[in-house]
């Protein structure tokens, strides 16, 4: 079976598309997470392949379906947090041979193919539809939702796994060389001027502070709230390995990376995998968990005019994303019980929620909003999952939290100030990402 990257036609990336044709007809019914780790320790049972299998089996069991009922698989083949397998290091063949390998020895160690998953989960005897999505779980969710709606699969697994090797990403390779190609020297992102990964967001945040008269200290309540929510997320990295609250003093005294972005404004790369099981609204009635219906998916395809996106470009794009999200779901901002927009970098969460006009926010309002009650107990929860700041970089806590809150199984993290009925999650970037609207009811 050859697996293709999802075609652009599966995404809803423009305004004016009307209500999604499959609104309320696709549901998530199973969740599976692997344990987390800071880095891979080199063992077969902790490889990204093993974590992915664990997540998939948990999601299948959680949904209460038998593996032979699964007929679809959507996954992200890229699993790196930034570091690729070093060319001068042999792939550990004992790990490779602990599984049923494919032709590519990096499969299951430094990447994932659909073929590798099927080969190593022999119980999946009826998978007829496989597809790849780029980058993040947010994209895989959108593709799987559209696929189930379109009838390409009935019980479709959705998977994202991450591997994190030793070393700091982007510090080797071209960053260490004496000469660089001209296109690198003046390309967006990594350039001759030594911009670290968070610089583009830090620059937008600096302009945000200049434009609206805000400052970096005003992020502290958001950071504290995110860590608190993350520590209430038993699947997360901080809860499992470093159960430490983050005080405003800790946050504000942290070292700068690219001022106004400090260490905590960057999420921490980890190893983890998660899987979901999507099905049709009809089939969902017979499954073990309360269905979480998908009302819409929307995608952002923002393009910066020049070398880095400006605040003004970001604000225009997030506002357009908000309109797409609501248009396709047939809802307004007032219908959102809570939000789980992306946050890794912390300093762009406010762009996402201002774009959504969450709780009536306009551009420039979010940092003042952060000074009010944004807790899970209050009427205006912000990022109830805690996001990547609260649980490490997976880019999927937000989705899991939307499902768990709506299903009433978010445990100690359960929202008490609002009734969790409709929520939106997604990301990553304000200028480019994929977003999903989740609901307790199909209409």
């Amino acid at each position: 079976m050859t697996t293709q990257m999802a075609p652009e036609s599966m995404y809803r990336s423009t305004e004016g598309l009307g209500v999604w044709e499959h609104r309320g007809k696709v549901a998530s019914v199973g969740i599976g997470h692997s344990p987390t780790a800071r880095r891979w320790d080199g063992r077969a049972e902790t490889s990204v392949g093993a974590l992915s299998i664990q997540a998939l089996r948990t999601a299948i069991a959680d949904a209460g379906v038998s593996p032979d009922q699964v007929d679809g698989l959507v996954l992200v083949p890229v699993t790196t947090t930034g570091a690729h397998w070093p060319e001068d290091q042999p792939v550990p063949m004992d790990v490779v041979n602990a599984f049923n390998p494919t032709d590519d020895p990096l499969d299951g160690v430094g990447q994932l193919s659909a073929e590798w998953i099927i080969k190593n989960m022999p119980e999946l005897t009826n998978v007829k539809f496989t597809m790849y999505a780029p980058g993040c779980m947010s994209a895989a969710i959108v593709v799987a939702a559209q696929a189930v709606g379109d009838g390409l699969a009935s019980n479709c697994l959705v998977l994202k796994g991450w591997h994190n090797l030793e070393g700091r990403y982007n510090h080797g390779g071209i960053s260490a060389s004496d000469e660089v190609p001209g296109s690198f020297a003046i390309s967006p992102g990594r350039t001759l001027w030594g911009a670290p990964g968070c610089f583009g967001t830090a620059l937008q945040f600096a302009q945000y502070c200049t434009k609206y008269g805000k400052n970096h200290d005003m992020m502290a309540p958001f950071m504290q709230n995110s860590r608190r929510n993350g520590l209430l997320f038993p699947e997360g990295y901080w809860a499992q390995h470093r159960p430490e609250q983050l005080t405003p003093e800790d946050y504000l005294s942290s070292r700068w990376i690219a001022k106004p972005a400090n260490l905590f404004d960057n999420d921490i790369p980890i190893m983890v995998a998660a899987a979901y099981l999507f099905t049709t609204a009809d089939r969902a009635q017979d499954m073990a968990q309360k269905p979480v219906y998908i009302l819409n998916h929307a995608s952002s395809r923002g393009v910066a005019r020049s070398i880095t996106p400006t605040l003004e470009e970001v604000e225009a794009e997030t506002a357009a994303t908000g309109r797409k999200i609501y248009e396709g779901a047939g809802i307004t901002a007032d219908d959102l019980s809570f939000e789980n927009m992306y946050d890794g970098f912390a300093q762009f969460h406010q762009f996402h929620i201002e774009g959504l006009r969450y709780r009536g926010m306009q551009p420039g309002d979010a940092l003042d909003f952060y000074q009010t009650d944004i807790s899970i107990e209050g009427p205006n929860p912000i990022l109830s999952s805690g996001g990547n700041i609260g649980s490490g970089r997976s880019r999927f806590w937000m989705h899991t939290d939307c499902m768990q809150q709506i299903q009433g199984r978010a445990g100690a993290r359960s929202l008490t100030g609002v009734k969790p009925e409709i929520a939106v999650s997604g990301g990553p970037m304000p200028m480019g990402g994929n977003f999903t609207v989740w609901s307790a009811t199909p209409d």
Partner: protein
Amino acid sequence: MVKQGVVPEDLNRPFFEAANEGRLVIQNCSACDRLHFPPRAACDRCGSGDNMEWKQMSGRGKIYNYGVVYDCPVASLKEDLPFNLAAIMLDEDPGILMYSHLPGVPADEVPVGGAVQVIFEATANGQKVPEWQVVT
């Protein structure tokens, strides 16, 4: 601060050759009168690559905003940490941004919105690149 050496490529060679001559040129679609930076194969407005020309700029701009880099992936810049990294808006079109270390400006003492003038700085292999100085 000595930046990594630069090896021009076909798409950006006129930009770097002009820099060696002390001129700032930016790609312009003459059909749309639209500037592009970084250089592109085709115009982002009309989609055509047939009318892309190189246009000389005045070399004047303004500081959009800035950050102060304390942790940098580029090995050769690490000894200069922390340093300013600003985005410069060209006076001809503030939608066109270029990066600058703002030589001569102490870290975190950047006049946001202030006027700047282009200069040309040699990188490690002698290839020159545009840099920007605050106009006082």
